[in-house]
């Protein structure tokens, strides 16, 4: 476990899940389907995880694996055809799924805020950025802030995320991509939420700006003790900033554990393969092994283990029976019948 093959950030990867403390977010057996003309799409299937206060959790997986669906289910911002069929979302002990629409609306942003993918489009083009941040305060602060209070708070937030406070009265189109994303982060903090969900926070940005944004988020987690859920297809991003990782495949979490642990010793074949297909700068040179095949059609998911059609270790058991997400050591759970067979070193292709 000493050869960390990816450039993980130092410092913030302390020990995960301290026992005894109540997690800020606890998700149990969450099931969500989309109802289509042709049938039900099983988008989120029995997802469970815990996020301790002040920590960050990353959900990683191919596009279409249900990461964003999990985020939207947490916020209950789903399309009309989505059906939450079961499970619990406990935010600080309160099950969000028990709340009515109006109650849930009051929780949004006030308790859970979001940083969306593609900040360019998260801003309404016809209002200034200041007005849009202020809107969240007007909706959630009690009593509503006066203009002076609101400005002071926004200026403070702008300074924290590194935006010139004079930009407060500018329109979104006057901001650069990175600045818009910083402003979104500032907005996410406007109501002092308990949790921030960052859905692909850096995907649309260039590499340098990406790094800056991640730095901002890391700062927020460390300085403000904020709990953050990151959602990304980019395992390098997740590696850099999270304490815990959940690897998702076809609507399920297939491996869950501390980031360092998973990077050092991936036990699920899917996790092992995606790590193998990611290059490393500091590690030994090797030829990357591609992940073959297509993600499954969730209208009609494969039987048993959903990964079996693409899995190099699959057996008849994988076709017939679904593996449970079980702990292999404390804090590290895997849903695979053959996790012992997964090699310790990453896969390579013969050159």
């Amino acid at each position, binding site marked *: 476990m000493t050869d960390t093959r990816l450039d993980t950030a130092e410092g913030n990867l302390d020990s995960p899940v301290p026992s005894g403390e109540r997690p800020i977010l606890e998700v149990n057996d969450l099931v969500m389907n989309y109802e289509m003309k042709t049938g039900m799409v099983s988008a989120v299937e029995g997802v469970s995880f815990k996020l301790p206060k002040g920590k960050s959790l990353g959900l990683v997986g191919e596009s279409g694996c249900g990461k964003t669906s999990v985020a939207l289910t947490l916020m209950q*911002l789903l399309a009309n055809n989505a059906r939450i069929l079961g499970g619990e979302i406990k935010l600080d002990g309160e099950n969000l799924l028990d709340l009515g629409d109006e109650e849930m609306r009051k*929780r949004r942003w006030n308790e859970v805020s979001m940083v*969306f993918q593609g900040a360019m489009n998260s801003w*309404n*083009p*016809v209002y200034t950025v200041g007005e849009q941040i202020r*809107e969240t305060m*007007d909706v959630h602060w009690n009593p509503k802030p006066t*203009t002076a209070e609101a400005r002071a708070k926004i200026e403070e937030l702008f300074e924290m995320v590194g935006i010139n406070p004079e930009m407060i009265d500018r*329109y979104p189109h006057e901001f650069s991509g990175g600045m818009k994303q910083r402003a979104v982060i500032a907005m996410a903090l406007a109501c002092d939420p308990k949790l921030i969900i960052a859905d692909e926070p850096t995907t649309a940005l260039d590499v340098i700006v990406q790094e800056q944004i991640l730095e901002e988020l890391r700062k927020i987690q460390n300085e403000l003790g904020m709990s953050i859920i990151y959602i990304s297809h980019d395992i390098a991003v997740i590696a850099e900033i999270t304490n815990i990782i959940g690897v998702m495949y076809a609507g399920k979490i297939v491996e869950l554990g501390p980031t360092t642990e998973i990077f050092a010793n991936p036990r699920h074949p899917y996790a092992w393969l995606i790590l193998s297909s990611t290059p490393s700068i500091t590690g030994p040179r090797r030829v990357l092994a591609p992940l073959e095949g297509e993600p499954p059609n969730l209208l009609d998911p494969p039987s048993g283990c959903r990964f079996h059609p693409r899995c190099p270790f699959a057996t008849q058991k994988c076709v017939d029976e679904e593996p449970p997400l079980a702990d292999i050591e404390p804090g590290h759970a895997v849903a695979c019948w053959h996790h012992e067979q997964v090699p310790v070193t990453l896969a390579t292709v013969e050159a």
Partner: protein
Amino acid sequence: MLKFIAKRLVQMAFLFFLFLSLVFFLLQAQPGDITSQFINPEIPAAVRAQILARLGLDGSIWSQWWTYVTNFFTGNLGVSFSQFPKPVIAVVGERIPRTLFLFTFATLLSYVMGFTLGKRVAWKRGGFSEYTVTIGGVFLYTVFYPWFGILMILFFASYLGWFPISGFLTPEFWRNAPFTGNQVFGQLLLSLGIAAAVLVAGLLVARRVPERSTARLIRRGGYVLSVLVLAGFWILRPEMRPYAFDIVHHTILPVVTLALVAFAGTMLLTRSSMLETLKEDYILTARAKGVPEKDIRDRHAARNALLPVVTSFILGLAFIIGGGVVTETIFGWPGMGALLLNATIIEDVPVATGALAFIGILALLAHLLVDILYNVLDPRVRVQAGN
């Protein structure tokens, strides 16, 4: 902003010049020679040449064209054939305020109705109401307009008797009136103009106030004040009031009919524009922010959906002006449209072309207004114009 308006004005002037030239060549292209039509053929050739010279018909077609255009811009549109020797500008000038009145109210009403209903239909997608409203909207949009006008008159005026059947005022009632219709109508326009000015002033002041609650107060104060001004204006003119009421009573049915037909287009467009906007990411953001649904609909979705609707106003404009001509004819409303049609039927060519030119000016000015409005509404355009 001023620079922008100036630039637009120059463009409009150019477009109008083009339009006027087209009108002139249309006149030239009509069959038969205007000289042989109106000058006695038995007049000796020398005298005839003299008359032609006096009428400015002796030069080449280009010099005639130049004379026509320059005359137009100095307000000389010729003399009406049917109301000889009243100049066309006077005939048209009398009609302009009435048409403007009908047109403004119908436009405002249709836009307010169309936008409100369109955004609601799009918000509550699907189901019975959407089908009914869409089909009803398309029917109003494509209905044979003169026929629809007749049906409205038959129902609301003949059958229910709520409104007068046609006209601008009730002649019997005005027989001993101390005022002329135009006087009262002028006062009516004046009072509405003042009220509108108060309203707009309130909105402009409210825009500059940073504190949102104060701004709202000023805005509402503006609404109330404008109503008060309107009421005060007419309280001070008790003897004129019943006559003004008579005119207003005559305007309601034509305004509503025109608005109903024009509203359908706005509604259908608002609906599809809203549906587009609702797919935008910032709507999801707004929902994630916990903004109440009604605010998402009105402040976020509808505000953006408004932009293409305002743009389409240009298309709607031609539609509503055309509709205005028909309305005036069906309802016997003595405005520019009725003037245009009557002049055409009795072959009063100077009046017909004069009215057409002024309808063109009306369309261009309304277009300018929309351009300015668009500028105010869309900050992205605002910046480009500033640069």
